[in-house]
């Protein structure tokens, strides 16, 4: 039996939000797992020039379709084998991580900026602004994303920049919806009124009172949308309208490997699994952040 006298006698302030956060992050296994996997993937992407055993663009038609090392005919020279032009698959996978991450991050930066701006404005000002934003969201949602993305990429061609822009301009809806409702919630808090009563400008209120309190939701949506963007790009690439070769996007690698689906299944399995792991980790992280930052006291 512990005598908890001190906690009765002395006024003891509980742990700060940061400590609580730290603790719950460390206790959240899937968050750590997802985060760990992402760190590894990001490192792999950043260090691709160092890590890649070969030039990802160097073709050697004489060694096409070398299987990965664990299959008959594989060699340590090309651990994950070579593709249809005899390029080293591992090197392409590493460089591909860069492309997929660039697309995810780029698209989320654009869509996050658009969606957050719209959502926060709608939630903060309400009334007409809210109506307009709501209407924009509905318009956006009623456009079939895949189709519109395909059509636009077909018209403008599928460079990396265009793909990022198209996805960025198409995927802002969830940001807007979530930011709108979180802003609305926070906006009604008395501390916002206190800040108004103190004479804070609207911009200051939004930046210092509202944003910090909806940041967690923003991060959650950003991670989930990043996964969404990467998946969509992979889908576009699969249909041949995403990033263009010789850039090794993972979706493109699946598309190229698809040709040999029945004969060299590892060609799609490897980039497909990489994509799966990346998306899974991002989702795990997003869900984890949501769990960890969810307001306590429920349950």
């Amino acid at each position, binding site marked *: 039996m512990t005598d908890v006298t001190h906690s009765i006698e002395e006024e003891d302030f509980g742990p700060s939000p940061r400590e609580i956060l730290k603790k719950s992050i460390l206790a959240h296994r899937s968050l750590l797992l997802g985060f760990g996997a992402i760190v590894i993937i990001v490192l792999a992407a950043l260090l691709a020039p160092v890590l890649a055993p070969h030039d990802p*663009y160097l*073709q050697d038609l004489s060694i096409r379709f070398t299987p990965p090392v664990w299959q008959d005919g594989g060699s340590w020279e090309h651990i994950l084998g070579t593709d249809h*032009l005899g390029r080293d698959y591992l090197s392409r996978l590493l460089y591909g991580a860069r492309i997929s991450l660039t697309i995810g991050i780029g698209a989320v930066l654009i869509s996050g900026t658009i969606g957050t701006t719209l959502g926060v404005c709608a939630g903060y000002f309400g009334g007409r602004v809210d109506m307009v934003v709501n209407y924009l969201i509905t318009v956006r949602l009623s456009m079939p994303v895949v189709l519109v993305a395909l059509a636009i990429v077909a018209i403008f061609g599928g460079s990396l920049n265009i793909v990022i822009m198209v996805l960025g301009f198409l995927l802002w809806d969830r940001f807007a919806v979530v930011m709108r409702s979180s802003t609305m919630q926070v906006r009604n808090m008395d501390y916002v009124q206190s800040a108004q009563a103190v004479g804070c400008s609207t911009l200051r209120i939004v930046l210092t009172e509202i944003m910090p309190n909806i940041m967690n939701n923003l991060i959650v949506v950003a991670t989930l949308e990043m996964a969404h963007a990467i998946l969509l790009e992979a889908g576009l690439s699969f249909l041949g309208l995403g990033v*263009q*070769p010789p850039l090794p996007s993972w979706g493109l690698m699946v598309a*190229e490997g698809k040709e040999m689906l029945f004969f060299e299944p590892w060609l799609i399995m490897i980039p497909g699994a990489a994509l799966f792991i990346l998306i899974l980790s991002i989702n795990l992280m997003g869900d984890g952040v949501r769990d960890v930052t969810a307001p306590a006291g429920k349950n």
Partner: protein
Amino acid sequence: LATSGVPALAGKSDDTLTVAFAKQLENLDAYSATAREMIVIARHVWDGLLYRDPATGEYLGNLAESFEWVDATTIDFVLREGVTFHNGEAFDADDAVYTLNWVSKPENGVSNQGNVNWIASAEKTGPYSLRLHLKEPFPAALEYLSGPVVMYPNEYHAEVGTAGMGSNPVGTGPYKVTSVEAGKRYVFEKNDGYFAGPKGTAEIGKIVWRTIPERNTQFAELLSGGVDWVWQVPPDQAEKLGKKFSVSNESTMRIGYVSFDSAGRTGETPMSDIRVRKAIAHAINREAIVNALLKGASKVVHSACFPSQFGCFQDVAKYDYDPARAKELLAEAGYPDGFTVPFFAYRDRGYAEAIIGDLAAVGISVDFGYLKYAALRDKVQGGEVPFQFMTWGSNSVNDVSAITSHFFSHGKDDYALDADVKTWLTTADTSIDPAVRKENYAKALSKIADEVYWLPLFSYNVNYVYSDELEFTPYPDEVPRFFQARWK
């Protein structure tokens, strides 16, 4: 791999040949659809006045018993008697004259005008004879008359029009159409009353034609017995499938080429410098690409046409794979460190990538654009493409006019705009003297090669993969003839 219990098991046992094609057809009207698939169907459902024996290249009478050039712009035909259309309508001069006159009028909207725009008119000279007038001398007329120009039943066509033909086609051919599910499935049944013409008589009772756009799905169906015959199988897959199925490989008239904006239509680009073009010609390892990627019957091509085509002069300048020379040429042209240029393609991304890889090796980097054919064609014809990897199948017409003349007579696809070449080609195209034609084509082709307006790369081949129970012979014109196929 196990066979499946999937319904509609095709094959010898029920005398049904199920074939899969990737392309969705607009309709089944031979004159409004443009796809190769339609050409294939047209051969089965209809007949032309003539038929070119694929083995000998000789033009034989088909619906016509015989023909005779009256002069350079007039041909007389004597028609075969006793032929009936699938709907029972008898074939005679009225049908032929009606068809020829109808297709010759641009307002009737034949979608591939190149197939018919040489026809001036036709007139009936007897119940089974007619006279055809050409607008100008056009030696390839026989080729067209034995290919795309097929005979429609006049009464039926007048009644149902293009739309009716498209949904419910009626011809004289070895197979009649018995079921149409647009864009999905067509069923053809053997025409038991087919006349004994040069095409021979069909043996297989029923052909089910399925549209399966996705190649892997085609393989899945093939492997699970859902289809018996697929084609255009890439060499790697064909090799693998060869273990279980019959594979035939046949060269096609399609050639792949790289074209340059030598005329500067897109503005100032390195491509207008012949040294750059030559450098590229030396940089691309065509031999290796053919051996590793295309395989089969494909050959490296040096002249801007398919070797079997009439007038395809072969003794032109050749550019060997020589990256060192390529670098020298680039340096001479003022690009010792290479340059970056937009590069487009619409099919065979793997080949394009291989080309890109070769170019990268000599310092040329590209902004690659991989577009759908229609989109790229619009861009090309709009004069926006300085450098591209394209292919051309000559519509299976075995004549240089179907390829070289198309690209070098100052049309929308011409990025060379060479006046000499145009003059020679026009002369050759309009002469009926084979010697004159050959001579002028040779001049044109030589200059094209010397100036490297085009870099012809290789000829394509087609792999046909089909059930071991099937006996099937492919031809280089890329028109599978199921009416000649039989079960083993």
